[in-house]
């Protein structure tokens, strides 16, 4: 069984088991709501998922084999397209790099 690095962890939306099974529905629903209607629900935004669940060591949810998203997705052989566009690191990882 995969053992993901859960970052800060904790529970804010629903319990762990429910989230394992249904997080993709929340993300898909939310992307329609926030992009097209401008409803920005902080609790179920992908950015905020990353804020808490990114690894404490490298601030990322996809950088390593056991990163939060990668661990299970690799085990289940489901590719993740989210981070082709979305940032996979928490915001502090971007501080300081904007002066160029």
């Amino acid at each position, binding site marked *: 069984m995969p053992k993901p690095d859960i970052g800060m962890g904790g529970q804010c939306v629903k319990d762990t088991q429910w989230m394992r099974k*249904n997080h993709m*529905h*929340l993300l898909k*629903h939310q*992307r329609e*709501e926030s*992009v*097209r*209607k*401008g*409803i*920005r*629900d902080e609790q179920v935004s992908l*950015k905020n998922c*990353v804020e808490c669940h990114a690894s404490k060591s490298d601030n990322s949810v996809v950088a390593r084999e056991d990163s939060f998203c990668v661990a299970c997705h690799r085990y289940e052989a489901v590719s993740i397209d989210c981070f*082709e*566009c*979305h*940032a996979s*690191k*928490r*915001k502090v990882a*971007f501080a300081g*790099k*904007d002066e160029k």
Partner: protein
Amino acid sequence: MSDINSQRRQFMKTSMGVAAIAIAPGMLLYGTSHGKSEGASSKVRWGMLIDTTQCTQGCTDCVSACNKENGLSGGTKSTDSQWIRKIEIKDISNGLVSSLPMMCQHCEHPPCVDVCPTQASFKRADGIVLVDRHRCIGCRYCMMACPYKARSFVHEPLENQNPDVPRGKGTVEACSFCVQRIDKGQIPACAEACQNKAILFGDLNDANSEIYKKVRSVASDHIRADLQLNPGIRYQGL
């Protein structure tokens, strides 16, 4: 899907409860669904009034601010994304040169939305024209349709995107009026960066806003007004 439906049901239930004691239930439903956290309101029409007499030739502060805010490379090749660019136009009868920023004009009747085969190009309720990259297939019809050449295509894989501004290869993008800032109550980065305050941003429908008053007191025009697209951006002094 089932949990989404149950949420909606919950919302309908609570709304109906309140509506039952109101005189005009329809109005109340409408009213409650347009709070701050409830998304873009169709009562708002975001727009800009750009004073070209205050726009300095050679100054690119608005462009730099846009690049920084949205994580663009700042390159100006035909394959680089440019959400805003400075152009100069010359009146051939007297040689007068005007400098102005050109970007997505956020049309009321946007041709990019008309031609999009997947409805990825869309106009938000508050008049901001956006690309939903979840649906964009990269066909670039919108780039051909836009009379302002406002859109760019992302040709190469990107990394280290700004967490507030997701962008990716194979999709079209353009000025979003800094929608991530507007939704936080801020103004677009270019308007904030302009030292001469040449870019006035605001709600064209709000009678108390500065832009509402200025549009009604100073002569200004749309670019390519003959196309009757009614852009949200007006230029003054051309």
